[in-house]
C-alpha cells in the first residue's frame, strides 16, 4: 500500500514543481522579452523623394529590404529595430538613371552595399501606438544618429495565419552629411531627401 501512495505523492510534487516553474518562466518572459518579428521583404517598402533642379519631386525606391523588429508595447524600451536595405536595389524607373544612382556619384553601391538602421533606444511616442526610435543610420560608409517617429499601423493574422504587424515612418536626411554630394551645391538634386519606410513584419 505504501508504494502507490508514495508514487502518487512523487508525481504530484513533480507536477506542482513543473507548474510553478512554468508560471515563473512565463512571467519573466513577459517582463523581459519583446515579441520578435522578421521584416517581410515582399510587403515592405522604402521610398524616397528628392527635388530635381528645384522644380519637381522625383520619387524612387529600394527593392530589397530585410531585418528584424522586436516590439514590447508595455515596455517600449525593450523594443529593437534592425533594418538593412541593399543599396544596389535602388530603382529609379529608367535603367540608366538607376545605374547612375548606384554609381560613385551617388550611393556607390559596389563599395557600400548596405544601408543599415539599427536602433539604440526606443521610447513610447506622444500618441498611442507610436514609438520614438533612436538609432544609427549607416549610408555611403557614414554613420549618423537618427531619431524617427514610428507608427504601428496595425496588426493581426497574416496570410499564413501567423501574426503580422505594420510599421510606418517618414523622415528627412541631409544627403550631404552622408557624403552624397553630386549636384548638391548646384541644386541640380535637392539637398534633403525624404524617406518613406513602410514595414510589414511576420512574428517569428
Amino acid at each position: 500500500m505504501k508504494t502507490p501512495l508514495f508514487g502518487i505523492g512523487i508525481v504530484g510534487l513533480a507536477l506542482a514543481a513543473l507548474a510553478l516553474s512554468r508560471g515563473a518562466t512565463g512571467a519573466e518572459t513577459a517582463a523581459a522579452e519583446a515579441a520578435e518579428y522578421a521584416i517581410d521583404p515582399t510587403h515592405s517598402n522604402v521610398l524616397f523623394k528628392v527635388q530635381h533642379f528645384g522644380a519637381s519631386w522625383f520619387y524612387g525606391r529600394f527593392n530589397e529590404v530585410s531585418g528584424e523588429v522586436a516590439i514590447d508595447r508595455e515596455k517600449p524600451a525593450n523594443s529593437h529595430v534592425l533594418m538593412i536595405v541593399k543599396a544596389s536595389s535602388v530603382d529609379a524607373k529608367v535603367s540608366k538613371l538607376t545605374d547612375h544612382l548606384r554609381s560613385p556619384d551617388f550611393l556607390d553601391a559596389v563599395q557600400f552595399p548596405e544601408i543599415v538602421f539599427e536602433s539604440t533606444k526606443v521610447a513610447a511616442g506622444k500618441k498611442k501606438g507610436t514609438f520614438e526610435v533612436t538609432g544609427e543610420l549607416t549610408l555611403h560608409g557614414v554613420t549618423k544618429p537618427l531619431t524617427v517617429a514610428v507608427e504601428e499601423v496595425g496588426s493581426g493574422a497574416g496570410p499564413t495565419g501567423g501574426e503580422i504587424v505594420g510599421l510606418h515612418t517618414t523622415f528627412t536626411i541631409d544627403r550631404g552629411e552622408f557624403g552624397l554630394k553630386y549636384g548638391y551645391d548646384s541644386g541640380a538634386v535637392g539637398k534633403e531627401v525624404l524617406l518613406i519606410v513602410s514595414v510589414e513584419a511576420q512574428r517569428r
Partner: protein
Amino acid sequence: MLGAAIARGVLAPALVAALVLVLAWRPWLSGARAPDGRWSGAPAIGLAFLVGFAATIGPPRLPFAGGALSGQEWLAWIALAAGVPLAVAARPGRAAVLRGLLTVALVEGVLRAMFVHHWSGAPAILWFAGLALALNLHFWSAEALARRAPGAAMPLSWIVVGTGLALTSGLTGSTALAQLAGAATAALGPALVLAWWRPRFSLAGGAATMVVLVLFGIGLCARFYSSLPRLEASLLLCAPFLAWVAELPPLRSRRPRVRALARALAVLVPVAAAVTSAALAYESDPYAGY
C-alpha cells in the same frame, strides 16, 4: 555652373602644382644657378590631386577616423602620402621597394570593397596578382620613358591619357570620377608649360610613378565601381605603352619635338577609340542629357 566647376576642378589643382614646381625649378634662373627640381614632381602632383579632389567632390574623409572610406578617398591619401617618399627614393633599390609598397597600398586600398564584399579565394588572389603586375609594368614603362624623353614629351602623352580617362569616365556613368581624372590631368598642365620653358624638365625620379598611381587608381574605380566597359578600360590601359613608338628606328633619330608629337599621336589612337566608343554608347542612351 559649368564654369565654376571647371574653375574648381581644373584651376585649383593646376595652381597648386604650378606653385610647387616653380618654387622647386625656379625657371627664372639660368645656367649653373638653375636648380634641378626633379624631386618636386611627385609631391606636386600628389598634393594637387588632393586639392582637386577637395575642390570637386569635397574633402576626403580622414583614414582611421571612423566610417568606411571609399576607394577614391584612399587614392587621394595614398597619393599625398607617396609624394615625399617618391621624391627622396632616387636610388633604384629604394624606388623598387617603394613601388612594391605603393602597389599593395593602391590595389588593397582602392579595391578594398571588392576584396571585402565581392572577391574571395582564388579569384581575389588572381585579381590582386594581375592588377599588381599591370601596375608595375606601367611604373617601369613610365619611369623608363621619362628618363629617355625629358621635356614636354611625357607630360603631353600623359595629358592625352588623363583627358581620355576623364571623358570616358564621364560618358560611362560617373561625373565624380571624370572630375577626379580631370583634376589629376590638370596637375600635369604646369609640368607641360615648364617643360617647354626648361627642356631638361623630366617626370623621371618619382613624378612618372605618381602619374601612373593616380590615373591607374581612378581607372580602377571607374572599371570596378562605375560602369567603364571592358573595351574602353582595355584601350586606356594599353594607351601609355604606345609612347614607346618614338624609340623605334624610323623615329629614334628624329628631333625631340617630332618624337614628342609622335608619342602623343600614338597614345591618342587608343584613347580616341575609347572616347568614341563611349560617346557612341552615350548618344544612344535615352537618359543622356537628363
